[in-house]
């Protein structure tokens, strides 16, 4: 009864033309449903297969990151950002480091900026590969999941060469990197640049023009550009709706203005457009990596910020300053000047923003993550209204809502 009233009251879609025959059932889509890929709950009111209304729940894996950050020294917040969008943690890490650098006004060497671009674009490729292959899985094509994973593994090996970790990378430091790219990294990156494009096109050919896949995804979970902007969508999901907003171009950071790349946009904002936008972005990311790698400038791999880099042990034992810095870093007593800063990077899912207020102490006074997934998930009930359960599954995976980023 309640659902029927809700159904009539809903003016967002033209469902009112249809009539409900029979009863409305309530089903729990999540939190332990296989296709929610994480812990989301949606309570769906369904009339047969058709979704009459949906209500989403957030907070199943809320870990209070923003509050945690208020008690941590700045360099210890980087591992927290790993756990936001864990499919592309290097972007989160580097975004956070750049936020602090922006606040202290540090000058970052060109080489560091280019190195960061390479890593962030690798992370974007890994992120988009997961999202697109999972759309295939949810559409029923399990094989499309395994093809790109061979290539994604190579990206993880590249992370390993830089920082030793694969998933929760904690890559880089505030002001640069703890070490330069090593020889293995260069070899592996060169081989990746060679082997990835054909492998990617092979994966692409499995789904892109597949008739069943197109029928399934076209028109599934659409959102108009206007509604998307009203929800403050960013990233691939907004671009799929036809708005060419990309933080890398709108507010270039880390020397993105040096590179030549295109921003793909969709038309309908449906699942197929989101898939296609991500696929094209992978190709564009490859272009950026190629440009950045071939023009990688010589120079230091870290900025002149001794308060963020542990000095060599030999100096710690013999020099006064080095000992002081060592002590301050280990004890987390690196103070940051008071100020307020917002910095955004184009994350795997959209504009990933860090709003940081410092009162001059050893840890932030307040830190707010602008998490794109949190915003997408708000629009989810509207997008799946009037669709079938199958469409709801595809919409969720194509928006790439990641539980870690949703709940922070």
């Amino acid at each position: 009864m309640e659902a029927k009233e809700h159904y009539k009251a809903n003016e967002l879609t033209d469902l009112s033309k249809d009539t409900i025959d029979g009863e409305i059932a309530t089903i729990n889509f999540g939190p332990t449903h296989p296709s929610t890929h994480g812990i989301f709950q949606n309570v769906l009111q369904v009339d047969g297969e058709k979704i009459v209304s949906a209500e989403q729940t957030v907070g199943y894996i809320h870990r209070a990151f923003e509050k945690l950050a208020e008690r941590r020294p700045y360099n210890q917040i980087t591992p927290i950002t790993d756990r936001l969008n864990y499919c592309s943690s290097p972007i989160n890490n580097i975004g956070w480091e750049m936020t602090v650098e922006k606040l202290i006004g540090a000058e970052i060497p060109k080489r560091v900026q280019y190195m960061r671009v390479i890593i962030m674009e690798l992370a974007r490729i890994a992120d988009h590969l997961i999202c697109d292959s999972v759309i295939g899985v949810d559409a029923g094509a399990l094989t499309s999941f395994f093809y790109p994973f061979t290539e994604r593994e190579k990206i993880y090996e590249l992370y390993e060469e830089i920082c030793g970790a694969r998933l929760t990378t904690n890559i880089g430091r505030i002001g640069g990197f703890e070490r330069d790219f090593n020889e293995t990294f260069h070899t592996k990156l060169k081989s990746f640049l060679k082997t990835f494009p054909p492998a990617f096109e092979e994966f692409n050919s499995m789904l892109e023009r597949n008739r069943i896949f197109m029928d399934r995804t076209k028109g599934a979970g659409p959102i108009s550009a206007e509604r998307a902007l009203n929800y403050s969508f960013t990233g691939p999901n907004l671009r799929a709706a036809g708005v060419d907003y990309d933080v890398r171009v709108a507010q270039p950071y880390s020397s993105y203005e040096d590179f030549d790349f295109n921003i793909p946009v969709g038309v309908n904002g449906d699942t197929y457009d989101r898939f296609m936008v991500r696929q094209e972005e992978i190709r564009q990311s490859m272009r950026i990596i190629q440009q950045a790698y071939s023009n990688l400038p010589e120079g230091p791999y870290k900025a002149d910020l001794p308060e963020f880099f542990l000095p060599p042990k030999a100096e710690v034992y013999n020099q006064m300053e080095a000992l002081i810095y060592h002590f301050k870093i280990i004890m987390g007593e690196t103070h940051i000047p008071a100020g307020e800063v917002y910095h955004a990077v184009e994350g795997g899912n959209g504009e990933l923003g860090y709003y940081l207020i410092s009162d001059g102490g050893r840890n932030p006074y307040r830190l707010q993550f602008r998490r794109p997934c949190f915003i997408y998930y708000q629009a989810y009930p509207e997008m799946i209204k009037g669709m079938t359960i199958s469409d709801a599954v595809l919409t969720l995976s194509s928006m790439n809502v990641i539980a870690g980023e949703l709940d922070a």
Partner: protein
Amino acid sequence: MDTALLIEKFSLVIIVFLISLGIAAYSTYFERKLAAWIQDRIGPDRAGPFGLLQPIADGVKMFMKEDFIPKNSDKWLFIIGPGISMFTALITSTIIPWGPPIEIFGRQISLQIADFNIGVLFIFGVVSIGVYGIMIGGWASNNKYSLFGAIRASSQMISYELAMGISLITIILLTGSLSLTDIVKSQHGMNWNIFYQPVCFLIFFICSLAETNRAPFDLAECESELVGGYHTEYSSMKLGLFLFAEYVSMFISSALMAILFFGGYNFPGMDYFDGNTLAILGVLAFFTKTFLFIFVFMWIRWTIPRFRFDQLMHLGWKTLIPAAIINMLITAIVIAFNKGWF
């Protein structure tokens, strides 16, 4: 009825039963291996050489699991469901002609358990009952996802049975008989029905995919949407029976396609052989064709995505049934024309 005939039929029943089960068991192994090869993996290789004991390990695992019956389910229907699925999957094998007659101890033994003169109708009857297993199982589970699976399965099977039945009328028109033995005999040598009725074969093949609940028509279990579909609440060997029934019916469907369209045990150059040599070669030819179809079934499953429910219905009602009817009419007219009725 003499005792020898009873013994003959009884041993044939046992052999066919064991072969069906054995092939179904090894289909699961082959499916996993094939999926692994398609996906660039290794697949099961721990149990026995090349993982060949995997189906046995799976069976033992299934039996050892706790047999759980949900509290609010309808207990008897919950138990009957998988049984019906398995029964209907296996019983179709009775009318399949496995090979040419064989001669043992001076007796002419037909490699077919029962030669019904209404073989094709019998298949449809049994296949229609097959959906009851899934429906009853899904309904008795008292789970909304199971119910969704059951509803999807029943409407899917009813829709695709129509197209299947209409498409097969053309084969009956060509042969002039409902008996599977006659249909096979009419395709002597290379005179296979596929060369006369390619459209009919295509429709029948698509419908077979739907009837056996295989991808891209596996909407009844559809793990990404309905958790486990109709068998969400099932555990232990009851789940095993459901899964097993799918493989048995896949084997039977492949066998039917081989019989109806690819000549069954007929093979080119069969006139050069006779007696038991012909029988053995015929059985080999039959199983080669059957395995080929099983391979195609699996190949499809691991290659393409699945349909959405409404698209499935559209394909069934708006494409396959009209195509089958047109194909039937054209065949009928051509046959009538050949017989000089115009």
